[in-house]
């Protein structure tokens, strides 16, 4: 799934494939290169990831169940994370998250996962990074105004959320993203938050 090639080289290859010369570096590229997490991928892989992402949102109920079973496990492993050290666990865990969620949801690693509140459709795939619902520019066919080839992330999110048990989670107002958390593990944060909050509260009450 992940091409193990250095990025500039891959960039050149993609540019050559698309008949553009001279190639641009990734940052100044006039076309949006497909990525899984932070890894640049080829066009066919982008299409595959896109279809998988739509499929995941359509099976939001199933993924909700999976996540519900999975979350307590991550939280219960708190002693393990603590003994390894949250800081040391961070990097490998983030990589695992990036690959697994990247393949399933085209996760952008914002570090503050709200997939279960957005019908299992990652809102960071919205070109406007909208985390609270669709903008007013959605096309009549349900596609994105910025990228007309793509289904609106929030059309998918709404349909996905309606299949989920916690269908109301989509109505919660999400606060602005903390950009410092970009690339960090959302799972570890959940584990740490759930396990350490009571301790802090105890300390506060004493």
């Amino acid at each position, binding site marked *: 799934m992940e091409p193990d090639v250095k990025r500039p080289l891959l960039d050149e290859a993609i540019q050559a494939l698309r008949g553009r010369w001279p190639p641009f570096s990734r940052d100044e590229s006039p076309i949006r290169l497909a990525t899984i997490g932070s890894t640049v991928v080829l066009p066919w892989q982008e299409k595959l990831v896109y279809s998988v992402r739509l499929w995941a949102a359509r099976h939001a109920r199933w993924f909700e169940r999976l996540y519900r079973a999975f979350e307590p496990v991550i939280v219960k492993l708190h002693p393990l994370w603590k003994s390894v050290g949250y800081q040391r666990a961070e990097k490998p865990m983030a990589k695992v998250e990036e690959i697994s969620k990247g393949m399933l949801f085209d996760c952008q690693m914002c570090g503050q996962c709200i997939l279960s509140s957005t019908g299992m459709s990652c809102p960071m795939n919205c070109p*406007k990074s909208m985390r609270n619902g669709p903008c007013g520019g959605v096309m009549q066919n349900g596609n994105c*105004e910025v990228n007309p080839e793509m289904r609106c992330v929030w059309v998918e999110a709404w349909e996905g959320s309606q299949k989920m048990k916690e269908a109301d989670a989509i109505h919660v107002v999400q606060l*602005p993203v903390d950009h410092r958390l970009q690339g960090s593990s959302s799972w570890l944060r959940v584990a740490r938050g759930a396990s350490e909050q009571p301790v802090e509260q105890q300390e506060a009450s004493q």
Partner: protein
Amino acid sequence: MSINDGAGRGQLASDAQSFSSAGRLEHVLRAGHFAVTAELAPPDSANPEDVYARARVFDGYVDSMNATDGSGANCHMSSMAMCALLTREGYETVLQISCRDRNRIAIQGDVLGGAALGIRNMLCLTGDGVQVGDHPEAKPVFDLDSMSLLETVARLRDKHVYTSGRKLSDPPRVFLGAAANPFVPPHDFRPYRLAKKIAAGAQFIQTQYCFDLPRFQTFMARSRDLGLLEKCFILPGVGPLASARTAEWMRRHIPGVHIPDAIIKRLEGAKDQKAEGRNICIELIQQLREIEGVSGVHVMAHRQESYVAGIIEKSGVLRGREPWSPSNSTTRERDYA
């Protein structure tokens, strides 16, 4: 000449405590009048006279003017500057804040600055993507979205803190607005999204162009069921279409504009398409007024601004009320806050 816009000094003194702003728009709406707001096209110049000339055509017919913030992602004079200029003359303005060009540091600074300059209304928008405008190579910011922007400004106003938690000594007293587009998918989600915006702090709503009345009625009925109509003032967007061709172009090229075929057919069949466009607009305003929960209209007459006064006059929605303008006021009423 009588001014009856529900914003007299006596009323201000008694109600000011419970109002969010000292602006006339909030007073007109809370007094139960049918409000009229209009979109003000920003000039591509640094000449303040251009701004005043554009505002003057609405004199006596609109309660507030929206100064757009790089609408359609095109570069123009800033909304902040236009509002500041117009506020000096005593006009009521709506500052449009879009998330496309500024991050939370810049936006919060602008909210404080705008309020200090006398701007009483702010409309929180996500903004168009840069690709539709004249600078498609620009970096899209989108640090906040319209919802978190609303929440941010409401927090500045009500909790007197920045998003960082740092305290303000004087909060901005502003009437908070948001946009809605009931005419595009996912239709079922749209009333809930309105609910979310109200929860985040929206007090008035201006919608995208309304040409599809049945769709709007469904949206309003659903919003009523959700109990939203008592919590905010809704001003559907209207505007005259210049011709069938313009209408066709708009629905193809402007994201979010939905114009039913019936409207285009009616324009095509008319002898004078421009006049017919205005007639459609007048009829729509009159029909919208009858819908429960509609508190006013927001007129967007791009390049047809000079017809707005006539359209409002013919629609009869002001019922003899004359909104404030420099020519009909005896006092500037600049400093009644």
